[in-house]
């Protein structure tokens, strides 16, 4: 293994993992679609036409129309933006909190560590979906609220990961060296420790995005997801659920989209994890 940089080793493994590559491909596609939504969508996603309610897919409407005669394909394309956005911001918030608390906890140890870990325990004991439900129902289901709540209830795993990394890293030579040279705590944390602890965070985050997208669709099912007219895969699918026997296109396409995205992120995340830890290969 000598002579190869970390990145090279990573890439060597990752490249051979077809599932992971497929995942990366899916995620990439999704980004392109979300980015180019205005150019890709054949119609205005909110263009209502009550004369063509729930029409079968046709050459005009490739994915058919929904309960208000809107083009499902266009709504799906725009929905990818929201779904991605919700996933990213929610996970971003969770990662920020988790990394911050985990770093402090792992670096300082002692009562700080104790306090934070008890906080983690409390949060982990909560059936967090209950908490999400309660808060969303109380403060209202705006996109921002949903992202914040999913984020605030999802940081514990990352916190533990970062803490564990810090615990093992902080005694390593380069950290001890930096400290002996009089480097400030903050500098050690941000310059030396964090970059080395980020890999598992990345993995966990990519899985988290998938979870957040699923959560949004679950909230939509309960009627407290992102509200119409904003299209999300979750609320298109929920409308599809009510008409499942007459309008298969209304649930098949968003169902597939959610499925492929969640798959994509999971495969990608797992691929990264496996490749980061080449020792797993015998």
């Amino acid at each position: 293994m000598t002579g190869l940089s970390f990145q090279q080793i990573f890439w060597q493994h990752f490249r051979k993992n077809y599932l992971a590559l497929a995942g990366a491909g899916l995620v990439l596609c999704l980004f392109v679609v979300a980015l180019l939504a205005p150019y890709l969508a054949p119609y205005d996603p909110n263009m209502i036409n009550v004369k063509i309610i729930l029409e079968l897919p046709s050459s005009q409407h490739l994915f058919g129309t929904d309960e208000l005669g809107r083009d499902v394909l266009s709504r799906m394309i725009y929905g990818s933006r929201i779904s991605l956005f919700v996933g990213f911001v929610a996970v971003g918030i969770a990662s920020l909190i988790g990394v911050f608390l985990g770093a402090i906890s792992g670096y300082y140890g002692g009562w700080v560590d104790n306090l934070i870990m008890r906080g983690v325990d409390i949060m982990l004991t909560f059936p967090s979906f209950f908490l999400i439900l309660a808060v969303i129902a109380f403060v209202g289901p705006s996109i921002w609220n949903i992202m914040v709540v999913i984020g605030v209830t999802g940081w514990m795993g990352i916190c533990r990961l970062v803490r564990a990394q810090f615990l093992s890293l902080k005694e390593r030579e380069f950290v001890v060296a930096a400290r002996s040279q009089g480097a400030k705590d903050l500098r050690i944390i941000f310059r030396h420790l964090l970059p080395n602890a980020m890999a598992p965070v990345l993995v966990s985050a990519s899985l988290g995005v998938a979870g957040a997208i699923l959560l949004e669709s679950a909230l939509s099912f309960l009627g407290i997801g992102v509200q119409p007219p904003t299209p999300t895969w979750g609320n298109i699918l929920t409308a599809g659920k009510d008409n499942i026997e007459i309008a298969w296109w209304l649930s098949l396409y968003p169902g597939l989209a959610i499925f492929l995205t969640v798959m994509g992120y999971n495969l990608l995340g797992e691929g990264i994890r496996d490749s980061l830890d080449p020792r797993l290969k015998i």
Partner: protein
Amino acid sequence: MMVPLLLGITLISFTVIHLAPGEPTGLATELNPRVTAEVRERLRVFYGLDKPLHEQYFRWLVRIVKLDFGRSFSPDRRLVIDKILERLPITVSLNVLSLLLIILIALPLGVLSATHQDTWLDRSTSLFVFIGFATPTFWAALLLMILFGVNLGWLPISGLRSLNFDSLTPFWQAVDLLKHIVLPVTLSALTSLAGLSRYMRSSMLEEIRQDYVTTARAKGLGERVVVYKHALRNALLPVITVLGLSLPALIGGSVIFESIFAINGMGKLFFDSVLSRDYPVVMGVLVMGAFLTLLGNLLADISYAWSDPRIRYD
């Protein structure tokens, strides 16, 4: 250990719930032409909502210690503990059953995946568990209902008991119940397979490449013995902890299953209470949910000790 945890939980949820806009008297009286301002105020006093927040919390906490969750705000005014106890067995048994199913399926899958790493078997089991994970549950549920309930007519669609349940013999009652829970339990298990089986896989992988396994192999022990006797036992340890931690997710997921399958368990009770601002019930379910998780973790710890020869509780 459990007491400060519970205290933290109650404090957080109590605060969140009470800072939210809206009141329990709202649903009962708002926008009703027959309700006058005086009537509304009367209801507020009646429900004790005129007291300051910390006093409400303190009063509630004192009663919790005596296992008294108070009475529901809903018009039936039943004891919260009754409402919860009535639904607890349903939710707990459904979750225990699906947990068993998950363990039964996920662990072997994970082990297989690990021992056959990077083969088609590994890939296809990965795909299988991901499909379960990535399919929105309510949608999958409806598809299965149409297939098995309407088209094939093999299984009942929703609820827990047939209409003629009460006239059945105990044996057929059991069969009836079983038929009703097939779909929800299977579905709940399928959607939660991924986590555990993937964890089992990586834990197993980790063990397999340990020195002692190599040594065992070198000693000429059969592959089966090496894998199933030595590696598996150690690989199970971290999985047990994960199992304990997956409880809150299962309990939380009950909301979805119970809504779609019309099962009146704790999840449904919680969601309804949240929507109607039935604070005592919301708090009761949260505390009970947390308590269940703690119990689960305790069980996990015990089995951990049981399966790890190095840990002994005196």
